[in-house]
Structures are given as structure tokens and as C-alpha cells.
């Protein structure tokens, strides 16, 4: 048993449902107790979906507990088959129902005999893998099922397209800025003169999966979902894949480089150098921005990064390479992919943190006191309590991270969006200087920023007043530093003198 208040990645069935509901005309049935269909609320609220989420539950209640599901699951599958006429029905167990150890595979087999839809049982272990791993596995499962099916009835399309083409794998509902990224990726491929063969699973049909092998290669924009499918396609159909996420200028460059290499294996020599240059110079403002004098103020500022592997690694690189910001530590909650992450951010941050414990992250932020945080919604709230600004760069997210306006993270427009996000998270240059000089415009009240409640130190009136003269955004830091200094030197009362002593002795 583990005491837990919050988690970064959800349970496995959420991953399966995200894949299922991304496809068109695929219905998911959860073998779950009443109330477990909260996924529908999330999709309907966060994505503001206008359609009913194609997910229903075959309810596990007392009767099921006592006598087993019997015909219930099969009836529910056949019913959905008739009502919605889907191409595929995916049965997914939940944490609870997987303990029942019912022979769901048998139900699926029997149901598929009667239904016109294909029926699959999601192959995910609820106690070993999380939402992201499950989505990866489910996508692979569906793709392999349909390719094997097509191979059997000889409808598989093995002949390559005449023009170079690509499959984009892993665009999923409820993904962080996925919808916007997809538009940007389409433009990206268009610019490189590469046809898009299939985009999977977002808005695609399972019956078109047999066309996947037509593409020359696969592009995996996000590490979390799609990689397993890409490896499967590489093994079975000898399809190369590019798994560099095109977020940030240097990543875009290496992504394009990899694409060039892939095309070379097909004896096609493409040189995208001039395209790269033109885009970097004129379309993306990010490169010019990092050169502009405004950005100089960011030199030496500190930041921390936390999120999924894809976004956290890319943002870490951007902060370090493009903006000259000192990344104190960079971390991910994708503990299953720790090694890749460590290698990816090596040299870009002082320290690498691999954890899914948000309290550890909170303590680390309090301890390292960065000027800005780039993380998930949880880090945003930690930042609020510590009075440190935060830019949200990764799931898990709230409804405000499903913006109506166009905000991609990938591609050249993505670099502009990210530059804005980063720049706006720090206090602006002139404001910064003036606040420093005149003691800030917010001198009314001292804000306590300590996360821990242990605070037996007292402050003299003058010292308190002095504290109010310090700009709000670093006041907390000064207060904590002074208190730490006082504690180290066994003072229990802080007056002006000790404050200045602390300032003198603590540098930075």
C-alpha cells in the first residue's frame, strides 16, 4: 500500500480508452463498476467534444460478483454492435475487474462470432503499467491485429507509394496540444514534400490500417505513444521510423536530418539545408529572439523542468541551447523510460530527476528555488504557493491547456509559441531592474512562502519592514535565506543586523 494524493499518469484503462476513442467508429466497452466511466466526462469537458464519447461500461455489480458476468459482457458487446455499428469494439478491464479473473478472452471470442464488428480484448496489466504505456501497447495491438487480418485476406498494401510518404503515429485524444501539433506536422510534411499516408489513431479508420505499409517511413512525434507500433512495423515490414520530436530548433534540425537519412535508404537524395535555414531565419522568430537584446536578460536565470519525457527533454534543450537559461534540474515522471531521458538531457541540466512522487518534486522546487518552473499543472500549483512563475509544458493538464486558439508545440510555429511561453514566465527586463532598484511596488505585506510549517523564528518590526521593501517575487527567497542563516547560527530572533549579515554572507 502506498499513501498517494496525486498521480501524474492515470490507470492503464485510460490509455486504452484514449486510443479507442481517437479512432473513428471504434467503440470501447469497459468491464467496470458503476462510476468508472469518468473518462467520458474528461473527454466531453476537456476536449469540449460535440459527440458522445464512444465508451460504455458493462457494469460490474453485486450480481456479477456473486455469479460472474455470464452473458452480460457478450450481450453488451452485441448490443453496441447493433446500436452503433462500429468497425471495432475493444473490451477493456479496469483495476477492479481485472482481479475478478473472468475469462474475458473467451467472452471476446464468443461475441465476435455474432457481431459484425471486430472484437478485441485490451492486453494491458493494470497493476504493472500506467496510462501512457497502455496507450502505446493498445495502439500496437490494434495495428498488428488489422495488419495480420489484412495479410490473411490479401488486402494488405505492401507496395510503396510513388512519392515519399509517411505515417504519423500516436496522435491521441486528450493529448497535450495534440490537435494543434497535428496541423503543424501536416504543414511540416508538406514543406518537406513528403506525402502523409496515414495519421493514426486520431480520426482514422481501422479498416485503413492495411494501408500503413505503403508509407516509406513512420514518424513518432511523441515518445510516449506510438513507439511500440513503430518498432512492430519496422520488424514486420522493414519500415524505418523517425522518433525525434520536432519541438525546438535543434530537435527540428535533427528530425529533418533523420528524414534525409531515411530517404537515402530509398536512394532518394534530398537536401533540406536551405529550407532549414530559411525557416530558422524567417518563419521561426525563436532564433532571432534568442539573439535579440531582450533575451540577454534571461542569461543566468534559473529554471527547472518537469513533465513527460517528450516535452520535458525538448524544453530542457530549448532553455539551455536557445535561451541561455541555467536548468538546475530536469525531470520526468515516465519512470519506465528513465534511461532514454537521462541520455537526452545529459549536458543540458545540472541534475536529472526521475520520480512520480509530486511531493518530492515540490520539495525539490522549494529547495532549489528557480526563477521559473516549466512543468505540469501540479508544478504550476507548487509555483503558486512558492510565488514562482510557471509555464505549463506537459500533461497532466486542466481545461485551460486545451486552448481554442492555435498553439502548437512542434514545428516552427511551435518554436514561436514556446519562446513566448518561456519569456512571459520570467519577469520582464526593465520591470526587473526597476523593482530591484526601488524596492518593488508591492510593499504592503510579507508573504510566507515556506512549504514546511516549522517556523519558530521571530522577526523584529524593523526587519519585517525591511523585508517588505524587497520585491515581491524574491521576497520569499530572501526570507527563507535569512531564516536559514539565522538557524545555522543559532539566532532565534531576526533583526536588521542579522538580515544584512545574512545578505553579506550568503552570496547569490
Amino acid at each position: 500500500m502506498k499513501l498517494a494524493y496525486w498521480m501524474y499518469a492515470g490507470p492503464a484503462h485510460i490509455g486504452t480508452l484514449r486510443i479507442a476513442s481517437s479512432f473513428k467508429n471504434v467503440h470501447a466497452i469497459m468491464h467496470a463498476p458503476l462510476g468508472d466511466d469518468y473518462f467520458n466526462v474528461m473527454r466531453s469537458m476537456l476536449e469540449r467534444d460535440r459527440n458522445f464519447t464512444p465508451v460504455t461500461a458493462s457494469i460490474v455489480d453485486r450480481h456479477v460478483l456473486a455469479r460472474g458476468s455470464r452473458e452480460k459482457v457478450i450481450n453488451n458487446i452485441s448490443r453496441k454492435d447493433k446500436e452503433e455499428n462500429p468497425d471495432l469494439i475493444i473490451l477493456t478491464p479496469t483495476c477492479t475487474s481485472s482481479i475478478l479473473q473472468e475469462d474475458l478472452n473467451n467472452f471476446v471470442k464468443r461475441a465476435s462470432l455474432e457481431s459484425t464488428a471486430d472484437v478485441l480484448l485490451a492486453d494491458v496489466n493494470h497493476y504493472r503499467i500506467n496510462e501512457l504505456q497502455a496507450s502505446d501497447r493498445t495502439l500496437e495491438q490494434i495495428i498488428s491485429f488489422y495488419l495480420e487480418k489484412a495479410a490473411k485476406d490479401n488486402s494488405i498494401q505492401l507496395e510503396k507509394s510513388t512519392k515519399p510518404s509517411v505515417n504519423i503515429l500516436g496522435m491521441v485524444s486528450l493529448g497535450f496540444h495534440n490537435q494543434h501539433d497535428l496541423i503543424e506536422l501536416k504543414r511540416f510534411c508538406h514543406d518537406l514534400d513528403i506525402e502523409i499516408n496515414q495519421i493514426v489513431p486520431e480520426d482514422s479508420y481501422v479498416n485503413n490500417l492495411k494501408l500503413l505499409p505503403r508509407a516509406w517511413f513512420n514518424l513518432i512525434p511523441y515518445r510516449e505513444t506510438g513507439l511500440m507500433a513503430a518498432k512492430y512495423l519496422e520488424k514486420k515490414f522493414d519500415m524505418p521510423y523517425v522518433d525525434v520530436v520536432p519541438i525546438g530548433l535543434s530537435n527540428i534540425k535533427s528530425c529533418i536530418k533523420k528524414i534525409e537519412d531515411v530517404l537515402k535508404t530509398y536512394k532518394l537524395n534530398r537536401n533540406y539545408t536551405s529550407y532549414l535555414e530559411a525557416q530558422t531565419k524567417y518563419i521561426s522568430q525563436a532564433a532571432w529572439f534568442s539573439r535579440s537584446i531582450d533575451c540577454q536578460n534571461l542569461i543566468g536565470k534559473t529554471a527547472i523542468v518537469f513533465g513527460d519525457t517528450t516535452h520535458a527533454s525538448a524544453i530542457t534543450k530549448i532553455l539551455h541551447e536557445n535561451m541561455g537559461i541555467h536548468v538546475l534540474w530536469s525531470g520526468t515522471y515516465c519512470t519506465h523510460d528513465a534511461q532514454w531521458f537521462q541520455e537526452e538531457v545529459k549536458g543540458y541540466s545540472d541534475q536529472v530527476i526521475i520520480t512520480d512522487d509530486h511531493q518530492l518534486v515540490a520539495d525539490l522546487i522549494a529547495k532549489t528555488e528557480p526563477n521559473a518552473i516549466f512543468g505540469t499543472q501540479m508544478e504550476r500549483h507548487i509555483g503558486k504557493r512558492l510565488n514562482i512563475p510557471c509555464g505549463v509544458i506537459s500533461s497532466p493538464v486542466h481545461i485551460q491547456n486545451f486552448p481554442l486558439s492555435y498553439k502548437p508545440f512542434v514545428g516552427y510555429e511551435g518554436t514561436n509559441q514556446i519562446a513566448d511561453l518561456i519569456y512571459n514566465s520570467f519577469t520582464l527586463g526593465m520591470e526587473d531592474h526597476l523593482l530591484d532598484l526601488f524596492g518593488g511596488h508591492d510593499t504592503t505585506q510579507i508573504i510566507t512562502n515556506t512549504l514546511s510549517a516549522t517556523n519558530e523564528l521571530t522577526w523584529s518590526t524593523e526587519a519585517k519592514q525591511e523585508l517588505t521593501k524587497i520585491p515581491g517575487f524574491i521576497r520569499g527567497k530572501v526570507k527563507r535565506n535569512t531564516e536559514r542563516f539565522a538557524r545555522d547560527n543559532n539566532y532565534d530572533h531576526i533583526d536588521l543586523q542579522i538580515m544584512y549579515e545574512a545578505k553579506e554572507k550568503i552570496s547569490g
Partner: protein
Amino acid sequence: MTLNNHNITFECETGNYHTFCPISCVAWLYQKIEDSFFLVVGTKTCGYFLQNAMGVMIFAEPRYAMAELEEGDISAQLNDYIELKNLCQRIKKDRNPSVIFWIGTCTTEIIKMDLEGIAPKLEAELGIPIIVARANGLDYAFTQGEDTVLAAMCQRCPKKSGTKNTNSTQKSLVIFGSVPATVNTQLALELRQYNIQVSGWLPSARYTELPVIEEGCYVIGLNPFLSRTATTLMRKRKTKLIGAPFPIGPDGTRAWLEKICSVFHVEPLGLKEKEAQIWQNLHKYITLVQGKSVFFMGDNLLEISLARFLIRCGMIVHEIGIPYMDKRYQGAELNLLEQTCQEMQVRIPKIIEKPDNYNQLDRIRDLQPDLVITGMAHANPLEARGINTKWSVEFTFASIHGFANARDILELVTRPLRRNLNVEVIPSTFSQTY
């Protein structure tokens, strides 16, 4: 309690409907019971639901947490007693609550974890009360979670209030159901006008202030979903349950107060006038809703009381979906519903227990009601099809009891209707598809 609601038709569907998991009750109960800590013993699925359903509340260091079961717990490689002891020790050290609630979930049911057996032992060892409530999705829906918690709390209420002031001639009255403190005060003030003292509330603001429940004292419910609590109070604590409609809407509030007065042999002078005054104040809203139709998909058990109130407001109710219908506990409410329909000269709506959302959507398409009261899963898709919706969960989280809060109910109900008056949405854009 006699039932003469033979004219009401009850139907039961498949139970394929959307509702919140009953563990959601920790969200409002931890706030209500200020010195409590709620430990939900369950899986990642439970945790994910709570953290998403509670939204930003999760960031405010709430007094609840998950005891997340791992594979070792499921396969009994780990000892439940030791695991729970470690967690509760940590909670005691970090938060020092006056009581810890263990919320049993589907998983603890299936693996048959003996929470009720472990709790007394750990309670003795740690010196802190531990109350077990099985609020799981196998047996219950949404608000029924509160019912399981209150039923478990009944057993902890002291039997005798020390020695002083045991005025045996004065009948005591305990009111059960968790409502915001302001509602407690408002209802207590209403009763004081008739010289009736509320001797206690279940739950109280603090665990240490649980009301005394003596044998033979009167109890009355505030909410329609508290049937287990009512049963426990009657059977285990030998109290007398006052069966009344629930104080939701001015009509419900009057009926509720009248019933208490009749038990205490008090003439409720001026009550009718007071009710009339409240209706008068609601005039602006009533003109908006009059003649409009409403469809309850059903998910929180407040449906009968709300439908009864809305019919009194002049609305036409097509269907009352409800997760579970206790005809005995809600008997007086059902009678009032029937009576209201007769007086307003409308047909008594069908009550659909354990509804089937898919079938309901079919009926909604046929009926094209002016308003559908439904969960968040269906709200946006229905709006996209030109059907006005109100999110049902808001009725659970708003103050809706007593005379003073009738306005709040209508605020909620009329919101989509007022939106239509204020916002210029081109109706044809959204209504063609359905």
C-alpha cells in the same frame, strides 16, 4: 407511514448510466467534518477519479488521501493490517486528525479485505477512532457514498449527554444529512420559531461534537439519499424516524417543517404565509420556467424532490431517472409529488430506476425537452444537438435546502434558459443534427 402513491409508475432499466463513484463523498465530507481525515483504500482508478473530479481542490492539501493498493496487496503477499497501520501512523503524525475514515472501494470488496475487522484493533493500538464506510461502485451511486459514511457514524454518537439537563419531558430532535453550516443555521432558526430545539446534527462540524442519540429520540433526514442512515438510526439506535418530504424548494421546506411541528404538537403559525412570500420572491424565475419541459437523466437521487419542486413552479417533467428508489424512506416525498401533480393538473411523470442512458438519449431525441438535467458526460454532446442542459452535479454542491435557498435552485435551473436569452447563438447551427 402509508403509501398511496399507487398512481405513480415505476420502471427499472438496465443500470447502464453515468454517475459519479460514491467515493466522491469524501470531497464534501472532509470539508464538513473539520477534524477528520479520509483514507480511500483503493486503486489508481479511484485516485484518478478523485483527482480529476475534485479539480483544483486537490492542490489545497486536502484532508484525504489514497491508500493505493499494489500488486502485493491484491495477491495477499502483504499484510493488510501492517500496511494500514503504517499509513495511519503517518497520517496521525502529519495531520493529527480526531478521526480517520476508511473508505472501502470495489477492490477491497472483491479481495474481501476485512476493514471492519482491522479497524477496532488499529483504533486501540493508535488511539484514534477509525470508522469504516463501504462506499463502492458495486453497490452504490454517487451521493449514496455519504449515506454509507453517515450510517457508520451513527454508531459512534454518544448515548447519554452526561448528567446535566436531562429534561425527559423535552423530546429531542436530531437532523441527519451533510449540508453547509449556513443551511444548518437557517433551518435551526426556522424551527426555533416554533420553539423546537435541534438537539444535534449528524454530521456535526467536528467529529468530537457528534450529537447524543438517545433511545426514543426523533430523527429526520435532510436528503433523499440517506436511507441506510435512516434505517441504522431506527434499528440500531432505536430512534423514531419522522417521514417527511425533504426541505428542497419552499413547498418541500414547508412540508418538512409542518411534519416536525405535528410530531412536536406545535401549530405552525404563519408558515403558509411565509411560503407564499418566498414564492412571491421567486416570481421572476417562475415566469422563465413556466410551461417549459424538463428531463432528469438521473444520477444523484435528488431527482424526486427537484422534480416535485419544478412541477410546482409550473414545469412539465417528462421523466425522472433515478439511480435507486427507496419507496419507504422517500414515501412522504412521493406522496407530495403525486399531490403536486394533481394540484397543478399535470400527468405524474414516470420514475425510471437504474436508467439506461442510451435509451434515454433516444427518448430525449423524441421529446425534445426544453431542459435536460444530466451528467457532464452527456452535457456538451446534447448542447451540440441544440438541447439545453444543466449539469446535475451542481445540485449536489450548491445550497438547495430551506426557504432561503429556493432561489439558488432556480438560478441553476434557469441558467441555460437565461443564457439563451442573453447569448446570440444561431439555433439552427446546432439543432439540425438531433
